[in-house]
């Protein structure tokens, strides 16, 4: 029996009961659509996280002061002042493989320029900070070593801050007031976008760390130290060397906890990717279950169909159809059903992002903090060919599995009984 003829028969049988066919397909459509959409979202999130982490800078190692165990309570990043400028110098001078070091302090501050003012984060850094963070100037220049030594009242602005204070541009050379201290703007940074944690990295003012410590934050200890390793392959070695050095300098006995937290960019990337992967896996699992439910729907309908068409099966057998011809016919019908469902599901999955964006915009749902809705609507998506192929294949496989038992049942019918069936 020719396959083309069988497919034609399958299509006719499916057309005969359009509503039933569409309802049966819905299970597969939603199942496949959900798998495609979720995987696209997961991959998009992963790529975005990786891009953000890469934007932290090349081969970055961050040492945060803090996490001292005080009566069982761990304080967070920068929670306890344990890092000193001398620690930073020691890392620069004593640890091999270190390319650049920048001590860091931070404080929130109100900044004013003319009649504009803005509340932002003031970061005290060393000159090499931009090297470590792989960050370039858009206009003007970075402050110099001599500015750092002399606690100079100079700064560079992040793009967001610059736009807020100087909407018409021309920030370089102007004087702004940070906590009422006049500070000269030396330059404006390239926009860097949001960080791995979703913060706007351009909403900042960078001043020499000495200036930050004395004039703005009023601290003697550092929040953190940013280090970049010369080679990515040395990252772990450099990190271990820094840990040893700091433990020695802080006189921490073996067996006691560090009074600082050390992280490198690779760890961060791996952790974040792993989180994204776990979440995606979970959602795909849920979506796959709906595909199975869709398969059960197909099986159910195919069983009904076999019973309804007992007489047709009898006629076909009487004119010479073998059991396997009948089996093939119903199997192909089930696979056709699930494959069309799969195809429509792929279309749905690919376009779900746009559909949701449209719906959310049209209804103004953005105000409602529905994480799922807004994530589907605004999250980055990345549809891959492989997942489309996999989704289509699985819908076809679901059809084969769901159709097999009904088809087998049909092929086992006795032609005499089947012909007599009313």
């Amino acid at each position, binding site marked *: 029996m020719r396959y083309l003829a069988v497919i034609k028969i399958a299509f006719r049988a499916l057309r005969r009961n359009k509503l039933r066919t569409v309802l049966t397909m819905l299970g597969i459509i939603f199942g496949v659509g959900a798998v495609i959409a979720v995987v696209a979202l997961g991959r998009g999130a992963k790529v975005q996280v990786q891009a953000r982490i890469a934007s932290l800078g090349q081969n970055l190692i961050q040492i945060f002061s803090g996490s001292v165990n005080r009566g069982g309570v761990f304080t967070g990043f920068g929670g306890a002042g344990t890092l000193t400028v001398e620690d930073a110098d020691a890392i620069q001078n004593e640890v091999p493989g270190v390319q650049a070091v920048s001590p860091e302090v931070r404080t929130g501050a109100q900044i004013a320029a003319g009649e504009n003012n803005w509340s932002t984060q003031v970061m005290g850094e060393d000159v090499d900070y931009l090297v470590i963070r792989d960050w370039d100037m858009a206009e003007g220049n970075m402050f110099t070593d001599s500015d750092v030594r002399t606690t100079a009242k100079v700064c560079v602005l992040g793009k967001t801050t610059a736009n807020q204070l100087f909407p018409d541009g021309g920030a370089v050379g102007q004087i702004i007031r940070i906590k009422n201290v006049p500070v000269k703007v030396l330059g404006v940074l390239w926009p860097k976008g949001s960080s791995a944690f979703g913060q706007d990295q351009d909403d900042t003012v960078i001043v020499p760390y000495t200036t930050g410590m004395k004039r703005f934050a009023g601290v003697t200890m550092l929040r953190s130290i940013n280090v970049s390793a010369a080679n990515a392959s040395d990252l772990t070695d450099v990190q271990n060397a820094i840990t040893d050095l700091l433990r020695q300098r802080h006189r921490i006995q073996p067996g006691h906890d560090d009074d600082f937290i050390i992280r490198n960019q690779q760890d961060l990337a791996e952790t974040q990717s792993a989180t994204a992967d776990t979440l995606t896996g979970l959602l795909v699992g849920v979506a796959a279950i709906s595909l199975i439910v869709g398969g059960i729907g197909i099986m159910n309908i195919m069983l009904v169909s076999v019973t309804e068409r007992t007489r047709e099966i009898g006629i076909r057998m*009487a004119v010479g159809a073998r059991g396997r011809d009948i089996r093939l016919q119903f199997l192909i019908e089930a696979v056709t059903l699930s494959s069309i469902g799969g195809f429509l599901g792929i279309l749905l999955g690919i376009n779900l992002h746009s559909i949701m964006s449209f719906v959310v915009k049209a209804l103004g749902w953005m105000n409602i903090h529905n994480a799922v809705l807004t994530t589907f609507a605004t999250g980055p998506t990345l549809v891959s060919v492989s997942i489309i192929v996999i989704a289509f294949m699985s819908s076809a496989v679901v059809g084969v599995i769901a159709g097999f038992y009904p088809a087998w049942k049909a092929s086992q019918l006795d032609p005499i009984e089947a012909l007599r069936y009313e």
Partner: protein
Amino acid sequence: MKPVIKLENVQKTYQTGEVEVKAVRGVSLEIFPGEFVALMGASGSGKSTMMNTLGCLDRPTGGKYYLDDIDVSQLDRDELADIRNQKIGFVFQGFNLLSRTSALENVELPMLYARQRIEGSSQRERALKALDIVGLSQRSEHTPNQLSGGQQQRVAIARALSNQPTLLLADEPTGNLDSQTSIEIMGVFQKLNEQGITIVMVTHELDIAQYTRRMIVMRDGLVVSDSPVTNRLSAEVESQKLKQEQTAANLAR
């Protein structure tokens, strides 16, 4: 001349629970090419079982059945399906056409299951030819619900002819039809028989059986009489007579 059908002491016993039902108790007969046989009997006589056996829908539990020199009593399900496909054309009482499927496609159905593949174009050609034989080539695209009972039965006959079978088996082919249409259908059978096609027809109506050439009567699973039809009716003549009667009745009114 070799017989198309040769039965040697064919028996069929059904096992229904504890009870054994002997539907056919040993039938031996031969049917030769070109014959037109009516298989008659009351219900329970075993004629339906005989029909199923002759049609290779079922196997006898005893004896031998040779169809076209092939011992079909030993074949398995698939082989029986092939025999039905190649050697037998069925015509049923309830027509048994596929609904919502055109007459042409209904006639093509047996060719779809032919072991030797038939090209789509020649398949269509053969189906149209079969429809032409039964006088329905003008209605090839009509579906069964657009056709009258007699026309549906003609489509069924065309379907039975499409694989050029050795034997045409008809099971109460006029059971669902009025008398005039019955005569028409018998006319089709007579015409086919004159062209040399072997026909076996199960019926319980004596007047229908009289259009055939040979009458086999069964009772309690055995053949009780097997004789040529003496006062054979011609569908053409009968149809004329019926028309005249109707005209007369109309005039009298």
